[in-house]
């Protein structure tokens, strides 16, 4: 797994010139960059430890008993109760079902968002139609709307549809991603030369054929990045799920809230549940961390 990733990473990039430029620049610049001193490393290690400590402490608390956590001076290394607490958490907040629900919800949102965004992004980038610029500006403008704004009527819509406490109540509204549309539009506009499309048109290809055979292959890397980001956001989403769902049909975040405010005898079980709910994201992160880092940095330069 790791080797594959490293290999692909070394493979030369063959995108549009616009994509290549920063890379060459960085290479040239990298040669000139100053080496880090000891102090730099010290600071970075400190920052790294700070980033990890709360997660480490979750592990410590999750593997202890309630009395251990309440001890002064506090304990700072893991104890023997991890599996027991996992078991308790699974029993008390139905974390198992929550994990499955979260997987279903996040995956569906990811697939739907990437598809919708690529379709619309392609249209905005490469097709000409009346009102294009206005619609694009409108789309970008909607990013400013606080998610809290539409929640009340959205809930009423969901209620009308009799969807409350069903997973589609969380999935469908979350498919609307102005960020995704904009992200894909920027990528396709820059990495897909117009000439390629014109050539296909001359050969008599229809727009949909162009989309599937030319746009999708070129846009695939950006789709993957958008997919990863969407998946993480969906997994961690919190505001809407706690309104639309309940402890009867929870996602992980809803279940965590139930653990936090639920009838749970001890804090260590709460922490065990927290750890269980976080583990899947940590695993994804362990496997694809490099790509996620790259995706965010890439998105930043583009944005």
């Amino acid at each position, binding site marked *: 797994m790791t080797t594959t990733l490293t290999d692909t990473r070394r*493979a030369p990039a063959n995108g549009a010139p616009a994509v290549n430029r920063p890379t060459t620049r960085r290479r040239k610049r990298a040669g000139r960059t100053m080496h880090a001193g000891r102090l730099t490393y010290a600071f970075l290690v400190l920052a790294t430890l700070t980033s990890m400590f709360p997660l480490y402490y979750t592990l410590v608390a999750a593997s202890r008993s*309630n009395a251990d*956590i309440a001890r002064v001076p506090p304990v700072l290394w893991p104890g023997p109760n991890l599996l027991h607490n996992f078991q308790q958490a699974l029993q008390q907040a139905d974390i198992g079902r929550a994990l499955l629900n979260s997987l279903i919800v996040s995956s569906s949102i*990811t697939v739907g968002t990437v598809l919708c965004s690529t379709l619309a992004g392609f249209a905005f980038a490469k097709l000409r139609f009346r009102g294009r610029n206005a619609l694009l500006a409108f789309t970008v403008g909607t990013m400013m709307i606080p998610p809290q704004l539409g929640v009340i009527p959205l809930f009423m819509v969901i209620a009308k549809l009799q*969807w409350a406490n069903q*997973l589609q109540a969380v999935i469908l509204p979350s498919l609307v991603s102005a960020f995704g549309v904009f992200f894909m539009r920027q990528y396709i506009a820059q990495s897909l030369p117009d000439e390629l499309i014109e050539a296909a048109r001359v050969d008599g290809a229809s727009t949909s054929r162009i989309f599937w055979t030319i746009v999708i292959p070129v846009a695939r890397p950006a789709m993957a990045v958008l997919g990863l980001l969407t998946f993480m956001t969906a997994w961690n989403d919190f505001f809407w799920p706690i309104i639309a769902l309940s*402890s009867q*049909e929870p996602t992980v975040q809803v279940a965590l809230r139930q653990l936090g405010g*639920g009838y749970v005898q001890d804090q260590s079980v709460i922490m065990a549940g927290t750890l269980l709910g976080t583990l899947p994201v940590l695993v994804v992160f362990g496997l*694809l961390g490099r790509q996620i880092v790259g995706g965010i940095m890439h998105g930043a330069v583009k944005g």
Partner: protein
Amino acid sequence: MHIARAARSNLVRLGAVTLASVLLAACGSGSTGTGQSNGEVTLSIDLFGTFGFKEAGLYKEYEKLHPNITIKQTDTEQEQNYWKSLQTRLAGGGGLADIQGVEIGRITSVAQLQSDKFEDLDAYGAAKLKKNFTASKWGAATAKNGAVVGLGTDNGPEAMCYRTDLLKKAGLPTDRDELAKRWATWQGYIDLGRQYKKNAPGKSAWIDSVRSIYTNVAGQSKERYYDPSGKLIWETSPTVRQAWDLSVEAAHAGLSGSLDQWSPSWNQAFAAGSFATLPCPAWMLGYIKGQAGKSGAGKWDVAKLPGRAGNWGGSYLSIPRMSPHKKEAYELIKWLTAPEQQTKLFQKVGNFPSSIPAIEKVADTKDPYFSNAPIGRLFGTAAEQAPVQILGVNDQDVQEQIAKALFEVERKGTSSSAAWGNARKGVQNAIG
């Protein structure tokens, strides 16, 4: 861009995962909650706090008696959060359990505003059960049109729980009758607290929070937030005033541990022994056992509550109209609230019965965890003498806001008058 390209291969993987999960979703939605084949029914029951059914093994017993029934319980510790989510789901018309618990402070709201959303249990023959229950318990769950929206589970007659070991270390008496005499009034209780404070072992407080004082004092009178005509009178209610003043006095005397009830630090304080006394409705006994754990056994005792007899809490079980298994659900709640089960519940977890035959049956119960305190007699007398309280639609909201303001007094040293003002603003805001 090379970095993102690498992710391409992972897209395939992601796709596979997604496909699998969408398929799972498709299967899942078909079987949500209930399996129907050959008469098998899964009953969902959604509760808050400690009902104790599961802990007392009642579900297992019922499942044994009715092999086609499986019971699935979900539980939220804080009633406030539970109520919020229940109301959201009632409005959304989905996600309700077959059986929902309702706190006594909310039952009036359900009976008056939402009787169309819950089954009228009379239709299932509940009228026959009426004679089992105390009149006030039954009456509170009856709507104006006579519909019965819930069956009573427990009541919350109050007593005082205390740590004998801590009191001993502080040089105070530990005998429950002696203590009951010393704290015959709330003033006596606070004065005793002052004495405790002088020699308090290990920085422990006299009481967990002044909220405890407030709720218990407020639970000792017939009239607190509403007058008999249903008018909100809490601002001028002498009961509220008295409960407030006593709480403020205890806070100013530094007797309180200033713990936020139902928060993790409150929970941890049981095990750590951070406070010596806790006014306790019967259902709190089970909670204490759970939180203080095995190491607390024998260290606790129960005595008569200062002031008059009072009631805090107690609940109902109701069946939402939306439930697909109303008949089975009714059978279950009828069984759970029957005198035999209420008796078992009290003996195992301490929830005091609201059923008359059960109250008679438990009169001699003693609890070894609480130094063999005669809890049957203690709570029985309290239940007998407790006033029938006048309840209103926003009972619980008012109580929450006042308790929050009192917490400001003990935790932040806010002045009594400023806190009272905050409580007023809070109630205005909540009631709208």
